């Protein structure tokens, strides 16, 4: 079978492109090297939906961010059942002499079309953000910024794309891309797939995939970021996403509200040559704590319940989204660092346009399923709603994860929607992401996965082959 488009990479970019293309009468294949979508760069995303500020006015990512923000707020959040919280953002200064810098960010944001920007003083901040430390003097308030769960955003897009006919192949690392007169041959996971077009959204490996296809036109340099998550009990320490004024070298350490409640502090930003360097470090923790505590001195190391490191797939300052004329049919979507999550819906529309320009007919499907039912999360609903859910399905009353209040039914639902690993269940449901870190619920989740998937316990893994949890079983 020759498909119309093969998308390489089921991170946020690939997922959004797959969902966008699923509107049309096309045969689309989405390839992912990991065991599940969102397991690469996207899983370490902060979940910030940026307004579009802090991007140069003439940049590609500037307008894609503003447009992506609009698409998410006005369409996708509702259509895909996403829990998007428009909490707004503050960019704070420690010295009133820096106010002109805020004015500049405001002017640049307004030039990109960001609305509602306002410089606010300490009295304004005291009324709305009482835990800010005395060093903070003023801020730029950015009302259209918000937060979302990055992986659930990806899962929603992929689920909806698959519902609309896109084929997803996981654990399929691309090992060769060959240009043929009539299109492409892509070798992945030991299979050969054919298509007219290839969209390369391979994140950290986009440079290698592009080179395989015959366009060694850029290089991805990973930039590592360590993030530290706080206990949900500290949910209300901050009401906005709080940035310091960016320095010349760094965007700075942020205090990030997350859509699930746990505040997060970070990220660091250090270039690394290693595309698999996901280690957190003593130095990273010290840097993050110092940066966050400058804005909010009451933050305590004992509030930290989890941490992780991610790699930004950077290539120069701006995104690379283009058709490679040297390899007709290849569209690269690379260097998608911040604000990639926000921009994804707009990137998807842009990529569809690029494909159309190169001759891909975009004929709308008669029956496009725009809506995706929102998964139930007990932690997001009031108790009366929980009671109604339990009446319909008793398993909603069977609590698996006590720290985050996740029921057996939610775990089963996550597996039925595609979770295949312990991390996949965690990202979809939050089970194991709380303060006990899975100490109490892991065995139960493993058993539910065994039941649903018919796996022996030794085949249940954390994040795919090689990460199996149990070596031997008495049976």
């Amino acid at each position, binding site marked *: 079978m020759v498909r119309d488009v093969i998308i390489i990479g089921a991170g946020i970019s690939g997922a959004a492109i797959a969902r966008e293309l699923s509107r049309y009468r096309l045969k689309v294949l989405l390839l992912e090297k990991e065991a599940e979508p969102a397991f690469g760069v996207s899983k370490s995303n902060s979940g910030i939906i940026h307004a579009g500020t802090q991007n140069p006015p003439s940049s590609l990512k500037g307008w894609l961010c503003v447009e992506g923000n609009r698409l998410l707020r006005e369409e996708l959040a509702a259509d895909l059942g996403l829990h998007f919280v428009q909490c707004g953002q503050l960019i704070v200064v420690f010295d009133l002499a820096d106010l002109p810098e805020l004015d500049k960010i405001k002017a640049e944001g307004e030039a990109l079309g960001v609305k509602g920007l306002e410089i606010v003083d300490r009295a304004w901040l005291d009324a709305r953000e009482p835990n800010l430390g005395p060093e903070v003097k003023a801020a730029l308030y950015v009302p259209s910024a918000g937060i979302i769960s990055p992986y659930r955003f990806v899962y929603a897009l992929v689920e909806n794309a698959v519902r609309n006919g896109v084929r997803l192949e996981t654990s399929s690392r691309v090992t060769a891309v060959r240009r043929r007169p009539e299109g492409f041959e892509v070798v992945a996971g030991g299979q050969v797939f054919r298509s007219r077009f290839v969209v390369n959204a391979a994140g950290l490996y986009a440079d290698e995939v592009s080179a395989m296809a015959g366009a060694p036109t850029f290089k991805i340099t990973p930039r590592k970021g360590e993030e530290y998550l706080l206990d949900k009990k500290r949910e209300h320490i901050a009401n906005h996403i709080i940035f310091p004024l960016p320095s010349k070298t760094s965007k700075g350490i942020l205090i990030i509200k997350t859509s699930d409640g746990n505040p997060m502090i970070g990220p660091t930003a250090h270039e690394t040559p290693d595309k698999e360097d*996901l280690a*957190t470090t003593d130095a990273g923790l010290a840097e993050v704590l110092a940066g966050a505590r400058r804005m909010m001195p009451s933050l305590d190391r004992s509030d930290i319940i989890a941490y992780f490191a991610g790699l930004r797939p950077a290539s120069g300052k701006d995104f690379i989204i283009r058709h490679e004329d040297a390899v007709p049919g290849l569209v690269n979507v690379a260097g998608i660092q911040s604000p990639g999550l926000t921009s994804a819906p707009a990137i998807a529309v842009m990529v569809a346009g690029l494909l159309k320009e190169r001759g891909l007919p975009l004929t709308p499907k008669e029956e496009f399923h725009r809506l995706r039912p929102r998964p139930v999360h007990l932690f997001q609903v009031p*108790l009366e709603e929980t009671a109604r859910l*339990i009446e319909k399905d008793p398993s909603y009353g069977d609590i698996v994860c006590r*720290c985050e209040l996740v*029921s057996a039914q939610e775990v089963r639902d996550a597996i039925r929607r595609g979770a295949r690993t312990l991390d996949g269940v965690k990202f979809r449901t939050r089970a194991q992401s709380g303060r006990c*870190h899975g100490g109490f619920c892991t065995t139960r989740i493993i058993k539910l996965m065994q039941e649903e998937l018919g796996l022996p316990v030794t085949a249940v893994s954390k994040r795919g082959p090689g990460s199996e949890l149990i*070596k031997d079983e*008495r049976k």
Partner: protein
Amino acid sequence: MKERQLVVVGGGPAGMAAALAAREAGVADVLLLERDQHLGGILNQCIHPGFGLHHFKEELTGPEYADRFAARVLADPGIEVRLKSFAVKLTPDRRISFLRPGALEEVQAGAVVLATGCRERTREMIPIPGTRPAGVYPAGLAQKMVNMEGWIPGREAVIVGSGDIGLIMARRMALEGVLVKAVIEIQKSSRGLVRNVVQCLEDFGIPLYFQHRISMVRGRDRVESVDVVRVDDEFRDIPGSDFSLSCDTVLVSVGLIPENELLEMAGALIDRKTNTPVAPDVNLTSLPGIFACGNACKVYDLADWVTRDSQLAGRMAARYLGVADL
């Protein structure tokens, strides 16, 4: 809404002792909520001996110790036991909501005893730097896997922390054929019982490194090795003292934290450092009629002491209800 005289949350050693003592002190009606499918709590997975020397004057395993109380609780017509029942909400005026398969229920309690136990401190709380592969488990989780499920998590293990749980798991893993390479302890001495150092480590030739810490976990998908470094009296790394241990498993046993989230939800004062109720005396909280006992009140060394103080909590609840003098 149903009214209940006393509601005990948690069916481990603390909750069972409190419920039984309250009954003896004259409380007519006790509702005991347990989230698991059995009474006993964590004792069910503590299959090693060492329990009961004080309370029963004989040495029992965890399940045996639990069973002596469970048998009495289940035989008492004045105690209604609700299993698979998870308390999700507590108000300062003692209304409790709990979920169970099939229903959300709400009860008004005359008095409440919280016997919610404790959780393990995790890798993230020390914190141990490095990658986050499969194979890093809280020691109590590994204990549950091995003892309750018959799942052997790894083949070569390093254990962080020489408290009793770490020591006991070292022996347990060794008995199951796992090569336990080392126990790593950042302090100068073990926080565990000295008898456990002898019978859990020395019996099996497992080295114990004092004043050392894991400075890095390595491995992408599964743990491959850990870096270990010696620290000085101020816990600073001693340069050049580091070495690597290959292993596929790291068990983390670095202490316990009382579980008082329900109490905190009710608005009681909680000490942020210890996560224990702020109160003038054992078993009390800052809310009248709401008591906390066992490891939720403070972390105990021995289950026997949990029993002793939780019996007192049961009597305190009875006195609060006006059915007994203390």
